[in-house]
C-alpha cells in the first residue's frame, strides 16, 4: 500500500517552525518511514507545478506555518487546502498571526516607508518600494501583492487543526503526526495541546501565594528574583495564566516569563484582553492615581499582551 503523502509549507514566518521539524532529530526517520513528503520548499526541490499536479485531496495532510501577508501565500494556502484532506496550522504565526501579526499596528505604506526608506542600513535614493508589476526592457515582471494586514491561516482557509508554539515543541509535533496517522483525532477545529493554562505545569507554581496582589510592575531585566518564584507574584508580567500549556515551560526554565506563544485556552476569545483584565484585577490599590501609575508602567502594552495574537484578537476580528 502506498504511504500517505504529506506536505510542509511556510508563509509569513521566521523559519523557526522548519527548524522545529528538523529538531525531531532521529524521529524524522520514523516519520518518513510512514509517509511520503511530497512538498517541502525549505528542504527539498519541488515546484508549485508539482502541487498543482496532485489530485484534489490527494495529500493526507499539509502543515502550514506562518501567517498570511502576501497574495502568493494566500494562493498557496488555498491550493494546498484543495489538495489536502487535512490542514494543520503549524506554529503560532499560522494559528494566531504571531510576531509578524504585530505589523497590523501599522499600515502597508508605513511598513514600506520604514523597511525600504527609513532603516539606517538601507540606501534607496530613488525611494523604490515593491510593486506588483514592473516594466523591465519591455518585459512585465510580477511580484506578489503585499497585503495591508496580516491574517491567520484560518482567516484565509478552513483549518482542521492547530498546533501552537513558537515553535511547536517536538513532542507535540510527533503526537500530532501520530494522531493523524492513526486517525485518532479530536474534534475538528481543536488545538493539539493541553486545555489548561501554563500555571498548571509551571515549575514555580508552589511558590504562588494564596492571594496574588501586585503593587508594582517590573521587568525581568530590572529586577532580580529567586528562580523558583512565581513571576506574576513578584510583579513581573508573565502571560502564563492566560496561555495554553504544552510548551514544556522552555522560557520559564530559562528564567523568562511566559510571552503567550501557545495562545489562549478554549473559552477565551482574546488572549491579550483577558490577561489585561486579570492583571489589572490584582493591582493592590483603590487609588485612581496609583492605578494609573501602575498601568502606565507597562511598556508597550499591545506588544506585550498581544505579542503572538494580534490578528487573532477580538479587535482585529471585528475590524475585518
Amino acid at each position, binding site marked *: 500500500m502506498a504511504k500517505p503523502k504529506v506536505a510542509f509549507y511556510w508563509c509569513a514566518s521566521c523559519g523557526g517552525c522548519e527548524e522545529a521539524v528538523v529538531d525531531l532529530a532521529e524521529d524524522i526517520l520514523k516519520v518518513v518511514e510512514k509517509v511520503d513528503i511530497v512538498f517541502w520548499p525549505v528542504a527539498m526541490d519541488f515546484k508549485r507545478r508539482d502541487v498543482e499536479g496532485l489530485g484534489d485531496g490527494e495529500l493526507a495532510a499539509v502543515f502550514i506555518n506562518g501567517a498570511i501577508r502576501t497574495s502568493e501565500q494566500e494562493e498557496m494556502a488555498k491550493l494546498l487546502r484543495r489538495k489536502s484532506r487535512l490542514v494543520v496550522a503549524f506554529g503560532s504565526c499560522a494559528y494566531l498571526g504571531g510576531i509578524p501579526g504585530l505589523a497590523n499596528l501599522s499600515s502597508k505604506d508605513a511598513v514600506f516607508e520604514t523597511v525600504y526608506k527609513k532603516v539606517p542600513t538601507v540606501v534607496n535614493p530613488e525611494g523604490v518600494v515593491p510593486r506588483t508589476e514592473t516594466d523591465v526592457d519591455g518585459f512585465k515582471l510580477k511580484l506578489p501583492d503585499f497585503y495591508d494586514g496580516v491574517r491567520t491561516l484560518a482567516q484565509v482557509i478552513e483549518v482542521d487543526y492547530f498546533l501552537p508554539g513558537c515553535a511547536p515543541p517536538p513532542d507535540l509535533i510527533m503526537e500530532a503526526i501520530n494522531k493523524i496517522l492513526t486517525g485518532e483525532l479530536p474534534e475538528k477545529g481543536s488545538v493539539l495541546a493541553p486545555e489548561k*493554562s501554563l*500555571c*498548571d505545569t509551571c515549575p514555580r507554581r508552589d511558590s*504562588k501565594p494564596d492571594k496574588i496582589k501586585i503593587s508594582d510592575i517590573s521587568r525581568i531585566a530590572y529586577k532580580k528574583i529567586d528562580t523558583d518564584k512565581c513571576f506574576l507574584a513578584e510583579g513581573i508580567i508573565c502571560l502564563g*495564566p492566560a496561555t495554553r500549556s504544552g510548551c514544556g515551560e522552555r522560557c520559564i526554565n530559562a528564567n523568562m516569563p511566559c510571552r503567550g506563544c501557545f495562545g489562549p485556552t478554549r*473559552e477565551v476569545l482574546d488572549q491579550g484582553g483577558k490577561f489585561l483584565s486579570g492583571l489589572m*484585577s*490584582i493591582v493592590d490599590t483603590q487609588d485612581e492615581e496609583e492605578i494609573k501609575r501602575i498601568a502606565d508602567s507597562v511598556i508597550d502594552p499591545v506588544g506585550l499582551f498581544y505579542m503572538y495574537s494580534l490578528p487573532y484578537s477580538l479587535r482585529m476580528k471585528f475590524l475585518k
Partner: protein
Amino acid sequence: MKRIGVFVCHCGINIAGTVDIKRVVEAVKNFPGVVYVEDYKYMCSDPGQNLIREKIKSEKLDGVVIAACSPTLHEKTFRNTVSQAGINPYNCEIANIREQCSWVHTNMEEATEKAIRIVKSIVAKTLLDESLVPIKSPVVKRALVVGGGIAGIQAALNIANSGYEVVLVEKEPSIGGRMAQFSETFPTLDCAQCILTPKMVDVASNENIKLLTYSEVVDVSGSVGNFKVKIKKKAKSVDYEKCTGCGICVEKCPVKVPNEFDRGMSERKAIYTQFPQAVPNKPVIDRENCTYFQKGKCRLCERVCPFGAIDFEQEDEVIEEEVGAIVLATGYELYDVSNMGEYGGGELEDVIDGLTFERLLSSSGPTSGEVRRPSDGKVPKTVVFVKCVGSRDPEHHFPYCSKVCCMYTTKHAMLYKHRVPDGKAYIFYMDVRTAGKGYEEFYQRAQEEDGVIYLRGKVSKIYKSDGKLIVDGFDTLTGRKVQVEADMVVLAMAIRPSSGAEKLFNLLKVSTDANGFLTEAHPKLRPVESLTAGIFLVGCAQGPKDIPDSVSQANAAASMISVMFSQDYLIHEPIITGVNEDLCSGCGICVAVCPYDARKINREKGTVEVNEILCEACGACAAACPSGAAQQKNLTDRQIISMIKAILEE
C-alpha cells in the same frame, strides 16, 4: 437545538403604544431556535400565564422568552409559571422591552427595531441557558449576638424565647450597656435600671442563652447559616463556679482606681463588679491595676475569699462557636468632650457630657442622685445645657443629627429642676426635634411646668472667670448676644459608633457609612439586615436612636432570624460563578479578586475551589480569570458574545 417559545406582552399601551407588536412577532418567528411566538395584552395576568403554560405543553417548548417589563418585576413570576409547566425555571428569560425600550423612546419605527434586537439577543442567551437547581445549605440554628446593651439583650431574649440557642457576647464584665448608666428615661421618666435589670436577669436565667461577658469576637469565617466565630474570653481571675458574689474581696481590695461606669466620678477597686445590679453579679480582677499582677505581691482577695474562687492563674481563652446568624448590637459612645476646646472640654472640670450628667442624676450614681458638680461637690444653681455638640456640624465634626439629644437634654433640665427647684436651667438649641409619641408634650411640660429656659442659638465659647463658667452665646430669636454665668455646663455630645466596633465590622466584612455606622441592606425595606446575608444590625451601631427604636429593631431582627431558623435549609440562587476544572490551572487570580472570600486554591488538585454559598455572583472573578475557567452560570462569555452578535447582526 432548544425549542423556544417567545411571548410578547403589550402591557396595555405601555409597550404596544410605542412598539409595533405585530412586527416584533413576525420578525421573531425567523430566529434560530424559535418555534412558537404569541402576543397578549397582559402576559402577567392569569390568562396570560395560562397561555404560556398551555403552549409549553402543546408546542413541547423547553425554553421560554417573555418580552415584557424589567426582570426585577416579573422574572420570578414567569419562572414560576414555566416551572409549573415542567420547564426548569432558569430556561425562562425576560427580554426587557418596556423600561429599556418603549418607555424611553417615542419613535415607533426605531423602538420596534430595538425591541426586535433585544428579543433576538435574549433568544440567543436562552439557547445556551443551562438548567439549574437552587443550592440548599443547612442552617445552624443558633445565633450570635454581639453587644449586651438593651438592643442586644432584647434580640437575645426574643431569639431564645423562640426556642433557639443564643450566644451573647459582651466585652464588659456585665451586660446592661449604656442603658444601665441612665437615670430616668424620657418621656415617661421610668427609672432605667428598674425596667432594664429584669431583662438582664432574664438573660442570665434563660437556658437558651449562653452568656459570655468580658469577651470579644476575634475571628469570623463561613457564611449565612454556617458562621464559625472565635471568641476570646478574657481572664476574669475569678472562678465563677465557686464565686457566690458575696463581695468580701471587693471590700478588702486595697487598690482604688477611677470608676469608668460613673465616668470617673467615683472610685472602684482593682477587683470589682461594674455596678450593684451587674449580671453576672460576680467580680473580675482588672489586671492592669491589681497590685499582685503588677508587683507580684498582695493576694489579699485570695485570702479573704471564703470559697477559694480567686484564680490568678486563669488565662485568656479562645473558644469557637458555630452559629447561623449574627446580630450586631455594638452600641455607641459619646464623642469626647476634649474635642470641644472652645467649650473648655477636657479642661474645665464642670463642663461635662450628657452621660456623665446621667450618672449625677442616677440614684445609684456617685452622688446618689443629688446634682453636685464634679469640681467641688457643690450643688450648681445655674446649669447650661448645649445641644448638637459635634453633631450637625459637617465642617468641623459630624454632619448627622444624633437624634436623642433633644429629648434627653429636655429630660436632664427637667430632672435638674426637680432636684434643685430654685436652680436655673438654660438650653441652647439649634432646633428642638420631638418626633415621637409623647415627646412634644414632654418638651412643653419642661418649659411650662418646670420653667426650663430655651435659647435658640449656638454657644461660641465657654470659659472660666471668677469661679464661674461664662457661656457666650447668641440668641437668634432676639438677635442678641447672650452671656450666662453658669455653675455647670452639660454638652450633648455627638453619638459615635463604639470604639473597637470598626475592627469587628472589618472582620465581618459588613459595610459602614461615612460616619462609621453600619449600613442596612435597604434603607426602607430591609432596615435591620446588613448587605452580608445572615448579619443583622440593631441599635445605635446602625445609627443614633432611642430605646424604643433600638428595642423595635432588636425585635425585628429576632423575628427575621426566627423565620430563617424555622427552615431546615437556606436556599441560595444557583446563579454563581463556578470553576471549570478542565480549564482551571490554579493561577489564583480570581482568589485575590473575590470580595466574598468564596474562592481558594486547592493545592492538591491544582485548581481553584468555590464556596457556592459565599458566592454572590458579582462576576469579578469571571472578568479576571485569564483562562476562561471562571464563568458565571447562564451568563457565560459564550452567551454574552452570542447576545452581542445577535444584536449587531443585520
